[in-house]
């Protein structure tokens, strides 16, 4: 690897971000190109770590020294000396893999931004936050301890907030009636993202601090991943106070928020208010994967630690929660994606759904760990799907960006007939959609099949080991996953068809009449698209290489020889289910959207049942409305009520009451000052009598 690569791959974008305002003073071109350059350099550093993982040792390319003979390798620096809190980087397959995804896609999307954001005002702020984001994300994945990971976690949340609300100055009318202008709406979307994810972050922080406190009680205070795995006393103490299961569930709260899983999934559709490059980078390829990364990071630790302390039921609970929430979210989001009107919203729901798949896979991995002691199957499925999804989702978003850029509308039903105007974009987006749907031989197919396969294996193994409940759950999860795959194909076809195959809409015709022509994306935008398409097509075939990479340093994992993986996948029992799913999803989609034999609008009008279902899905299962009206609205009303009826009525009045009592007392007492000498003398006499009595009897 290049010298200091683990540190520099995240430090360089952050430094670049800080330098951006200064570079902007020199010139806008300088600023733009140098911002992109920083992210490219970061990717170079991240990529330089890959050969070391394959080799199993870390070699410094500058000096030729072998820095470490074993993976994982960590490098540490003290941050807060007196408390022993450190900063450090951990180089192992998972972190290097994620770092490459983050910086690689980051660099590609930054290049794309040069075209997409060309001519926009406030670009300094854009470049600053984009670079800061890439740096924060890489920091998150390269961190060697929970605290530093949390710092990266919050940084990406901050950049996400700032970038979603990037166009807060827009004066056009707002799409929802609560706000006057689109700018205000955008700002609200940013805030919604931040607050919703913060709820998850709070749970994560509680878990992190609890773990830290218990490591301190065990005599070894640390946040470090490797040390947590090594010294397991903290877990024993947590079990003794009954807090282990709550802590790991709370730990999962962070991923629920950041990765937009149920019940904290409501922020991602609104996050589409930001520029499409932001949606591609943050809300498709990287930040939302941070939760998956965290689960993947802690899963091996939990397996190791809980086995050592003989409390594997915690692993069972944790994995069950992860898998079930993942599966349910996948299903939930896919239903919403089937009826959405805006292209970016379809992609947003699709992202939520696909991340659900990843969580499902990791959860299955954990359950496999509980049943047979080896999580590799599910772990591999989850991370492989992460990679393939990152590529094709970024591809889809960037293509959508090209489409948005040239048609200036977000609503799919205002597009149509773009196939002849934007052929490159069409082909790229088509491949992306098919990969999303899991059509062979694209990468999405291989990664989804692996997940189904893992679920099947779980069910089989569970039954053979006597865990009937887990076995049943395995089959149910598989079933949900397959149904979701059907829906995925449905909405993918729907999306492509409406945008490209359907006849040109009135809106577009109006636009052409005004003289604005629909054109293909500029080269700087379609080159990244083509690159991503190629990766998406051939990526699946790199599965064996990926497997070798990911399991470097793991003990006792069977690494299959290259062709065996493909044969296993193609001939697994789940392949029939997949084909069934394609039929279930593909045939209606074809009739409704591609060949347009049945008009969807008329169909809905004729069939009441489907119309009700459609409306339910369109209103996002009313979850979002519930949160906004009951939780948020209720809370704000509560604060006003407390202010009016407690603070002002009770506490303020109490003060005035005290003051009034004292004043009344004073007024009463004043009456004794008559100014009359005779009364004063009577008082003197009384005083003397009292004193005498005291003297005599006191």
């Amino acid at each position, binding site marked *: 690897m290049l010298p200091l690569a683990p540190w520099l791959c995240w430090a360089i974008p952050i430094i670049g971000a800080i330098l951006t305002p200064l570079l902007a003073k020199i010139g806008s071109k300088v600023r733009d190109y140098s911002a992109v350059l920083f992210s490219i350099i970061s990717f170079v550093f991240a990529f330089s770590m890959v050969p070391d993982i394959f080799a199993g040792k870390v070699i410094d390319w500058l000096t030729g020294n072998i820095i470490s003979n074993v993976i994982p390798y960590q490098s540490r620096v003290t*941050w*807060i*000396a*007196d*408390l022993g809190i450190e900063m450090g980087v951990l180089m192992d397959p998972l972190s290097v893999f994620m770092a490459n995804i983050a910086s690689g896609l980051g660099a590609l999307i930054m290049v794309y931004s040069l075209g997409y954001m060309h001519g926009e005002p406030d670009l300094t702020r854009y470049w600053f936050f984009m670079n800061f984001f890439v740096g924060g994300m890489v920091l998150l994945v390269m961190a060697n301890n929970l*605290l530093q990971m*949390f*710092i990266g976690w*919050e*940084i990406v*949340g*901050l950049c996400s*907030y700032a970038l979603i*609300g990037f166009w*807060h*100055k*827009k*004066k056009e009318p707002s799409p929802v009636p609560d706000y006057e*202008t689109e*700018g*205000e709406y955008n*700002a*609200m979307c940013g*805030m919604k993202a*931040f*607050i919703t994810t*913060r*709820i998850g972050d*709070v749970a994560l*922080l*509680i878990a992190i*601090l*609890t773990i*830290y*406190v218990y490591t*301190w*009680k065990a005599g070894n205070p640390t946040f470090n991943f490797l040390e947590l795995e090594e010294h397991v006393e903290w877990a024993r103490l947590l079990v003794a106070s009954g*807090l282990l299961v709550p802590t790991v569930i709370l730990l999962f709260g962070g991923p629920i928020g950041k990765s937009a899983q149920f019940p904290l999934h409501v922020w991602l559709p609104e996050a589409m208010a930001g520029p499409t490059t932001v949606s591609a980078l943050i809300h498709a390829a990287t930040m939302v994967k941070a939760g998956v990364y965290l689960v993947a990071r802690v899963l091996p630790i939990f397996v190791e630690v809980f086995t050592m302390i003989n409390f594997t039921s915690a692993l069972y609970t944790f994995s069950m929660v992860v898998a079930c929430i993942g599966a349910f979210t996948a299903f939930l989001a896919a239903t919403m994606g089937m009826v959405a009107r805006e292209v970016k919203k379809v992609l947003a729901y699709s992202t939520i759904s696909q991340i659900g798949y990843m969580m499902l896979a990791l959860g299955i991995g954990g359950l496999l760990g509980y049943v047979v002691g080896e999580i590799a199957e599910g772990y591999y499925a989850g991370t492989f799907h992460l990679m393939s999804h990152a590529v094709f989702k970024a591809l889809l978003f960037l293509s959508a960006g090209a489409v948005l850029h040239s048609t200036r509308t977000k609503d799919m039903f205002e597009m149509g007939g773009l196939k002849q105007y934007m052929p490159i974009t069409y082909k790229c987006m088509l491949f992306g959609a098919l990969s999303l749907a899991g059509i062979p031989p694209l990468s999405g197919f291989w990664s989804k099949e692996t997940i189904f396969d893992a679920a099947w294996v779980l069910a089989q193994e569970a039954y053979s080991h006597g865990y009937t409940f887990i076995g049943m759950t395995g089959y149910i999860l598989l079933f949900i996953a397959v149904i979701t795959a059907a829906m995925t194909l449905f909405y993918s076809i729907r999306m492509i068809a409406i945008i490209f195959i359907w006849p040109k809409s009135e809106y577009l015709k109006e636009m052409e009449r005004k003289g604005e022509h629909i054109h293909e994306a500029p080269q700087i935008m379609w080159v990244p698209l083509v690159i991503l398409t190629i990766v998406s097509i051939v990526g699946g075939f790199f599965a064996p290489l990926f497997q070798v990479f990911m399991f470097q340093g793991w003990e006792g994992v069977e690494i299959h020889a290259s062709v065996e993986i493909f044969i296993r996948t193609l001939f697994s029992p789940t392949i029939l289910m997949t084909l069934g799913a394609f039929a279930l999803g593909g045939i209606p989609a074809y009739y409704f959207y591609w060949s347009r034999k049945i008009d969807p609008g008329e169909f809905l009008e004729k069939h009441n049942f489907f119309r009700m279902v459609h409306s339910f899905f369109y209103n996002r299962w009313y979850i979002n409305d519930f949160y906004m009206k009951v939780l948020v609205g209720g*809370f*704000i009303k*509560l*604060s*006003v009520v*407390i*202010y*009016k009826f407690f*603070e002002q009525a009770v*506490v*303020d009045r*109490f*003060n005035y009451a005290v003051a009034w009592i004292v004043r009344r007392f004073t007024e009463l007492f004043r009456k004794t000052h008559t100014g009359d000498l005779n009364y004063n003398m009577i008082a003197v006499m009384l005083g003397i009598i009292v004193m005498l009595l005291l003297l005599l009897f006191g």
Partner: protein
Amino acid sequence: MSSPLLIMIMLLIIGAPITYVVGKWSTKAAGWLSFIFSLVSLAIFSIFVVPDVLEGKLYVEEYAWAGPFGATFLTFGLRADNLSTPIVGMVLLLCTLAALYSIEYMSHKHNQELYFALLLIYIAGIAGVILATNLVQFYIFWELMLIPSWLLIARWGTSEKAQLIAFKYFMYTHLGAICILLAIVATWSLTTTFDLYSEEMIKGIAAASTSTLNLIVALFMLGFAVKMALFPLHNWLPDTYAEAPAPISVILSGVMSECGVYAVARILLTFFGTTFTVYSMTFMVIAVVTMIYGGILALAQTDLKRLFAYSSISQMGYMFLGLASATTYGIAGSMFHIVNHAIFKGLLFMVAGVLVYQIGPVKGRDMNQLGGLAGKMPATATITLIAGLAMMGTPPLNGFVSEFLIFTGAFSTGHFFIAALAVISTVITAGYILWMVRKVFFGPPKEAFENVKDPPLTMLAPMAFLAFLAVLLGFYPDLVLRMLVPAAKEIESLIGG
């Protein structure tokens, strides 16, 4: 220099009448003179005292003060150690910046020479409270803080009810101070000395009965709780902070209320630690209630300065939580939060002052009428966002470090649910801050604010410097923590022992 601490305080006190006299001739000169006096004090402190403390040396100056017939029973002592140095440094820094800020802000108000003179006495009072080693001296400086601030609010406050509000503030704090006085006298009766760091004090407290100690701690806590605005004694704060002139709000919320926190650490935790920790759970509950109550009420405000005031109440809850947990992490976190809160809350009140200065005393504070100012005042908007994010505890800013230290301290006491509740209340903080930033700065610009622009340099420079500090301490908190953590460790060992 032989006695820098004394010179520092005397410079401020003597500077006051000089500033007044100069001010009669030219108000601008008075403003700059007050800034220079406090800057020189800060310089003396940083150059002569800080390096020694960083090396680990304790810096104590003691002067015999009062006593009949040659014997001294009161000493005037100034103690700069690991605990007080960062706090005093922050106090002087913030007050210097506030003085610089005041020059422009107060430029159209009446009686500026009196304002600047009072400002200097106020600063001297706060610095004296923190450096004091003798309880009587502590009390004197405590009251010395109170009187100039009362006058400053009454004369230059921004509402017609300013005098009433100042009076309410005075009565509340003074009643608290009387409780402190009673506690001081009770301590004297136990130990026959007023000096904190003396043999008799420690022996006397060790020998005292539990009921006496409980009484003393309760009285001290009452006084400090009023100053810290803990629930339910917080009622003086919203009106006071909202209606004080902006630079005074900066100092009030930035450092003066934190003196209560510091005093708890210095007096209660160090010397009455064993009694204090018996009630640790109760104090933690009070702290969390304060945090949540302040946050919820902040959400209900439409006036910008009142929102910041309730936010300050909430932040005091954070600080007290750290102390209530009585662990190294918690105490270090609390003290660091004092420094951090001075930075970001001082900054926010300066921003509120900028809005009032640029837009107007009524419109500039009403959040329903503000909006879209980011385009007009980009520097102010960026600085506000930095301050707001720091207060929310976002890394890599300073608020994150002190908050996570406080929460770690809370968790390590073993009271899981209270600590979890405290962490959850950070969502409320995030809510009202982001809402405030969005309402005031984001959104498209309104025509009413066509001519609004960034404030003049003497107001912007202090704000920029504080924002820079927020970032710096976020990346490198050890600058301050290397003093505070050993101090916290020392206090914790005293409690345990």
